[in-house]
């Protein structure tokens, strides 16, 4: 994979997790498989990230009994996490719009 792309993805990984959790609470495997399908990331890296976000107070956890095996750990967005998501989303939208505008400008010049 292109190393530039890796840096981009690293930056937005947290934003993606916040956005997923804003839709519904979820557990590690589910988050990891949805993100790895969408942006091609290693599944194992989700847990260091979730631990960090939990300590930063962006997400909280609760256990749900499952019929098969041990209880499952669910992650829920906190108030702080929701605010963080809104701020990051606004910054991301502004930034990508500005970059897209510049790229389009380039395209018109060269064509």
């Amino acid at each position, binding site marked *: *994979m292109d*190393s530039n792309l*890796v840096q981009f*993805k*690293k930056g937005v*990984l947290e934003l993606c997790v916040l956005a997923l959790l804003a839709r519904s609470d979820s*557990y*590690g*495997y*589910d988050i*990891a*498989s949805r993100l*790895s399908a969408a942006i*091609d*990331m*290693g*599944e*194992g*890296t989700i*847990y*260091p*990230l*979730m*631990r*960090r976000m939990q*300590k930063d107070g962006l997400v909280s956890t609760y256990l749900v009994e499952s019929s*098969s*095996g*041990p209880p*499952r*750990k669910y992650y829920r967005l906190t108030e702080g996490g929701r605010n963080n998501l809104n701020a990051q989303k606004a910054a991301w939208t502004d930034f990508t719009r500005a970059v897209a505008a510049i790229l389009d400008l380039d395209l018109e010049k060269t064509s």
Partner: protein
Amino acid sequence: MNERDSFLRRLRSGLWGLPRPAIDDIIADYEGHFDAGRAAGRSDADVATALGDPSRLARELRAEAGLRRWEDERSLASALGVIVGVIGLAALDLFVILPVLIGIVTTLFAFLLVGLVACLGGGFALPFALVTNFPGFMGDRLQAALLSLGVLGGGASLTAFCVLFTIGLVNLLVRYGRAHYRLITAGSNGRLRD
């Protein structure tokens, strides 16, 4: 031994030194991941490949734990934890930074030593200056006392400066460590890249 057991064993051995509850918590996360994978019909080998290198994950988790401790309490032990953790991440350009870091730390240590010695020397000389003046000193007792106070004060500021500089340096290392986390792997082949 199957892939699940070998993954968890390598992860656990990589986490050695962290508090017991933290290790159990992390292991439980990955056990749950294997369980959920099985429930979704994936083989343990498949899940282990998608998870990535357990030693690498353990290094990231350890480094993060070290950085956290430094942010919670500013102590010499936690500062060392940050330095060891960031070096454990073994980013390639660390080999460029390491000699510089060693130079800075050595210089800092020398200054700290000078500061402490000046502090002690000044503090030790002050009572003598007040009571008897220094033998062979070409001034009166007031001058001797002021000289002692000056050395004492200078030593104290040098020491304080060194401590502040160390805190700044470790904070810088924390940022460096965070910036170099390789949280994304090239998922398809499971290899870690920059």
